């Protein structure tokens, strides 16, 4: 199992999947041509990571803005992590939003209510 890094583009976030640290971090914008395809490679990596017997993961979302197809993928992302939480893995989420970005805050709040895994919502100043 290797760490995987995807370089940031105008329409896709930088993604850092680190085996040693047990972290997945997304940073940037998200409106790929095919969001479902883009996120599938991350989900596959996460499944691979846990199949090696790993016990924990921290997922860090620091997104600037995303389109509605990506929002659907974020929900699928949370659903996948919740599955591992339910399987006794130690999962935690950090959802970062820019201080005055009510849209990113509200969608984070909605996820934090819908899922029972540890979920932190944190503001940052750009």
């Amino acid at each position, binding site marked *: 199992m290797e760490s995987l890094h995807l370089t940031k583009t105008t*329409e896709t976030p930088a993604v850092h999947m680190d085996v040693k640290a047990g972290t997945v971090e997304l940073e940037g914008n998200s409106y790929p041509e095919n969001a479902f395809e883009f996120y599938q490679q991350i989900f596959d990596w996460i499944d691979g990571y846990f199949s090696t017997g790993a016990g924990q993961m921290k997922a860090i979302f620091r997104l600037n803005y995303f389109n509605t197809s990506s929002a659907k993928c974020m929900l699928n992302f949370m659903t996948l992590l919740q599955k591992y939480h339910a399987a006794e893995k130690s999962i935690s989420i950090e959802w970062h939003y820019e201080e005055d970005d009510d849209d990113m805050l509200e969608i984070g709040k909605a996820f934090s209510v819908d899922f029972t895994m540890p979920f932190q919502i944190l503001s940052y100043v750009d």
Partner: protein
Amino acid sequence: MTNLSLQYQQYLPPLQAHELLTYEGVFTHEVVVQFTQELAAVMGGEKPKKLFVTTIELIQNIKNYSAETVDVTGNSPVGVGFAGVYSGEDEFISVSGNLVKTAHVERIKAHCSKVRGRTVQELRALYNEQLKEPPPEGSKGAGLGFIDIAIKTGGQVDFEFTPINDDVTFFTISAFINKL
């Protein structure tokens, strides 16, 4: 189908605003990305997220749902349409225009009426509900676009339908985003 591209402008609603950026033609993914980069350049560092994300949603709608398509690469047809971003006194206006099948107009109108006259709080609840539903048939995205645009504009969104002929109707969405 008759090529109506060159006549699109006549169907657009009149706006009391300065033109910042317009594009008319084929919306490949590369054009979608380029359009947002041009918009960033035109805005000169000002990056109101609600304007960017609304514009992306509008132009991806054209790409995915326009009834007029061109198959540039021979792999998959992409939508043709018009996109424009304008600066008014108190708001930015993002406009999309494209042909839709006249037979689909009633269904699109039903989608539009779902988001009319609701508060942002109600729209967010609707968004969260819809997010968990499987995408509607014929949707390439998540079926959330109109709701998202209504949220980002605080309900300031106009939908217009101009019948062209029995087959096609010109569909315009004008989204108004308050300047801070």
